[in-house]
């Protein structure tokens, strides 16, 4: 291909910072040829137009904390690094609304909002991520029980489609039903529909006070027997989290209470849990983090070694799950007993066939009442399992993908059903 007219030249002429990709830029082992560093939505669009003209596949990366989740892209020519899309565009404290560019680190946003006594009530389980990455991966934390997940707090979005079209949906008011809610579709879409350029969120005031009731050491049966009353209690906990590092190791449950009169409400929770629970000002160290062997340091080697699963089910299935498939392994479990969303990690040395059998056993046990998604796994495991399991509406999803990205150039192959 002629260097003066090829895609490299076209990218260079797009008016966007471009650099040749290096080995560190690989996405789950797939090396891009160029890295683009757009600073504005228009610059993203310029990159996308060139990519469309030259049939280049595009993967978007924020801080890269979950870039190795899902399947590796079938191909990747251009990596769009959102690091330079790092502006908080608008924060009108009186409206409890913030509009941010996709590359803003979650921690930067948290600090800026805290300065005004507010927060985006999402607590992503991985440190170091960006707002765009958080959205695209659709990650939720403990307080989803009270505040919902990213899709519930997102009120507006600007995206750039595969052909360079810039489109927005929603707006900057919390209440708004005009038009389709594209933000919902892009949340958790793993970059397969287009590039998220900026996002607008509904905020909450920082809680006036908080207290955490921690019960360390009980048996799982004791925990599971006590928790339903806590979840339903009028003390209105924001989160009920379990830490079970191993089937027969130490275990703990922690209940977060936020808002006015938190101390008093925490006492009510403690009474429900029983005498051994203690009230602390802050949640324990493990709170809101991924279970240990699956935990991947940001920017660390992709894959991270272990197998990381997410189980989404309903509370009534938890006892059966713990007595069944979860009891039989060396799995570390952490997650919400209130929302029945658990993350499970298997150590890196787990035999791939055994890991695959474990996933199947979980799925069989939950049947219709739950889903088991393999968030991240080393290749030998990933090859043996269907990462996503049952996906309702997959045919419709394919049709959406076909409309948004007919040439399959956006993170091809990474998502459900090979989308």
């Amino acid at each position, binding site marked *: 291909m002629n260097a003066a007219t090829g895609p490299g030249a076209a990218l260079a002429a797009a008016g966007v910072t471009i650099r040749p990709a290096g080995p560190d830029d690989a996405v*789950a*082992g*797939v090396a891009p040829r160029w890295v683009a560093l757009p600073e504005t939505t228009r610059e993203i669009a310029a990159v996308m137009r060139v990519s469309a003209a030259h*049939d280049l*596949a595009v993967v978007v990366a924020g801080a890269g904390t979950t870039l190795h989740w899902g399947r590796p892209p079938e*191909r990747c*020519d251009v990596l769009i690094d959102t690091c330079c899309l790092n502006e908080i565009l608008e924060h009108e*404290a*009186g*409206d*409890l609304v913030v509009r941010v560019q996709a590359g803003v680190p979650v921690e930067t946003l948290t600090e800026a909002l805290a300065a005004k006594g507010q927060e985006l009530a999402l607590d992503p389980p991985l440190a170091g991520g960006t707002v765009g990455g958080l959205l695209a991966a659709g990650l939720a934390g403990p307080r989803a029980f009270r505040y*919902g997940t990213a*899709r519930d707090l997102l009120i507006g979005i600007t*995206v750039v*489609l595969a052909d360079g*079209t810039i*489109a*927005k949906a929603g*707006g*900057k*008011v919390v*209440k*708004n*039903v*005009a*038009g*389709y*809610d*594209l933000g*919902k*579709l892009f949340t*958790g879409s793993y970059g397969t*529909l287009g590039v998220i350029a900026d996002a607008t969120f509904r905020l*909450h*005031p920082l809680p*006036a006070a908080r207290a955490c009731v921690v019960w360390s050491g009980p048996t799982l049966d004791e925990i599971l027997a006590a928790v339903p009353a806590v979840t*339903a209690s*009028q003390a209105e906990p924001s989160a009920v989290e379990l830490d079970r590092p191993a089937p027969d190791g130490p275990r703990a449950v922690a209940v977060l209470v936020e808002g006015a*009169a938190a101390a008093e*409400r925490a006492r009510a929770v403690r009474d429900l849990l029983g005498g051994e629970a203690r009230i602390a000002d802050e949640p324990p160290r493990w709170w809101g983090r991924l279970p240990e062997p699956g935990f991947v340091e940001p920017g660390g080697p992709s894959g991270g070694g272990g197998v990381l699963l997410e189980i*989404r*089910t*309903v*509370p*009534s299935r938890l006892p059966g799950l713990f007595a069944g498939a979860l009891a039989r392994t060396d799995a570390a479990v952490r997650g919400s007993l209130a929302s029945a969303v658990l993350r499970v990690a298997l150590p890196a040395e787990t035999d791939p066939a055994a890991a695959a059998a474990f996933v199947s056993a979980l799925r069989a046990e939950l049947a219709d009442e739950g*889903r088991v998604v393999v968030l991240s796994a080393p*290749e030998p495991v990933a090859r043996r399992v269907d990462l*996503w399991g049952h996906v*309702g*509406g*997959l*045919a*419709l*999803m394919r049709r*959406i993908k*076909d409309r*948004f990205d007919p040439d*399959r150039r956006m993170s091809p192959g990474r998502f459900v*059903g090979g*989308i």
Partner: protein
Amino acid sequence: MSDPVLDRLAVRFEELLPAGAVITDPVRLRTYECDGLTHHRAMPGIVVLPETAEQVAAAVRLCGEYGVPFVARGSGTGLSGGALPRTDGVLIVTSRMRRILEIDLPNRRAVVEPGVTNLAITEAVREQGYYYAPDPSSQQVCSIGGNVAENAGGAHCLKYGFTVNHILGLEIVTPDGEIVELSALDPGYDLLGAFVGSEGTLGIATKITVRLSRTPEAVTTLLAAFGSIEGGGEAVSAIIAAGIVPAAIEMMDALAVEAAEAAVGCAYPEGAGAVLIVELDGPRAEVEHQFAAVERICRETGAFEIRVAASAEERAAIWKGRKSAFAAVGRISPAYIVQDGVVPRTALPEVLAGIDRLQEEYGIRVANVFHAGDGNLHPLVLFDDAAPGEGERAATVSGRILDLCIEHGGSITGEHGVGVDKSRYMPKMFTEEDLDTMQLVRCAFDPRSLSNPGKVFPTPRLCGEVPGVRKGVHPLVESGRAEQF
């Protein structure tokens, strides 16, 4: 006015559906000619009343076979003409799908058919200490299917969110007549979230799993009377700035209060330029704490009278005026338009001043009722339909209020939907590219545009074939130019 295609279709429906489920008699069809937006009317070609999802699916497939458009209808309380029928089409009404299929308190959910009313869900679980949170004022009659389609809100959505935040699963009949289950548990694109609020344009919901919420331990309702709307507005801002998220903050201006007084004798404080209703709910200790703060804020911002409900009856008395507000203006005006716009809360004073200017400019009165906590305005534009030209002037004022909302970064609808009523405002709020992109979703679900066509989007668009869709492995991978692991 018999249409041969519809006639043949009616015969097929008769074969397919239970007795009495197909309506072609013009007198009976007339019942369905409009929804809550009564000045848009059209006689439906055929009305069908299916009883099961399979019957809905079969009906939709038949429509597809004959290329006839269909419109879903729940209780017909929609205020944007979303359920306005097509004379050349079929109206699929869910009123015979009214069963509550399952109540599952340990998992805080209920599974219901789409025709079940919003309030019926709460009534089914109230005694056990649960409720269904979204509470549109029409909740006694509106259907949960209609709520899903409109992403309905209510006075309490400031704290608890909208319909979309409370739907855990849907069974839908797609526009090509397939039954598809969508669950909040599913990985993949959030089709559930995309479907909610799509106003019947992406298919018909035939089964709905809703989240049930715990009835709060304590509820406190306070009514504060202010000399002016500015005073009330200041109180709202101060409450929010104090980090309090009440269950509801509602405001009514003097004219709206006058109407409510005339209609239901709500006995709000005399001489109020604005009445604010603040409801706090949650754990008792928290509510007590916040209540003290709200009361202090109202006094500091100039409330001249504060009433606190001491019982459920007193709470109902406070809400009575607010809940009757829409219908009440009928007492002070022969006709009116219910508007639904949203502005950022901080822009409320400017927008209200703008509405005042419009009243003067056009000689049209506007009664303001709003969900002040989230900036959702319901201006009631009053006019005399017998006075020449007044209806047009009122419509102009109503439209210009939406312009004000858009100018201030708001929305043309907070809860009533776009329907037929506001589709022409969509291009003011969204660019051509935005609308084209939304259309991609439409085309994925309904490439033939048979499901509630002509609603939401201003101009009909053709979907066309998906250009150059490649299936399977990409050629670059196949040719070895890209690696796949």
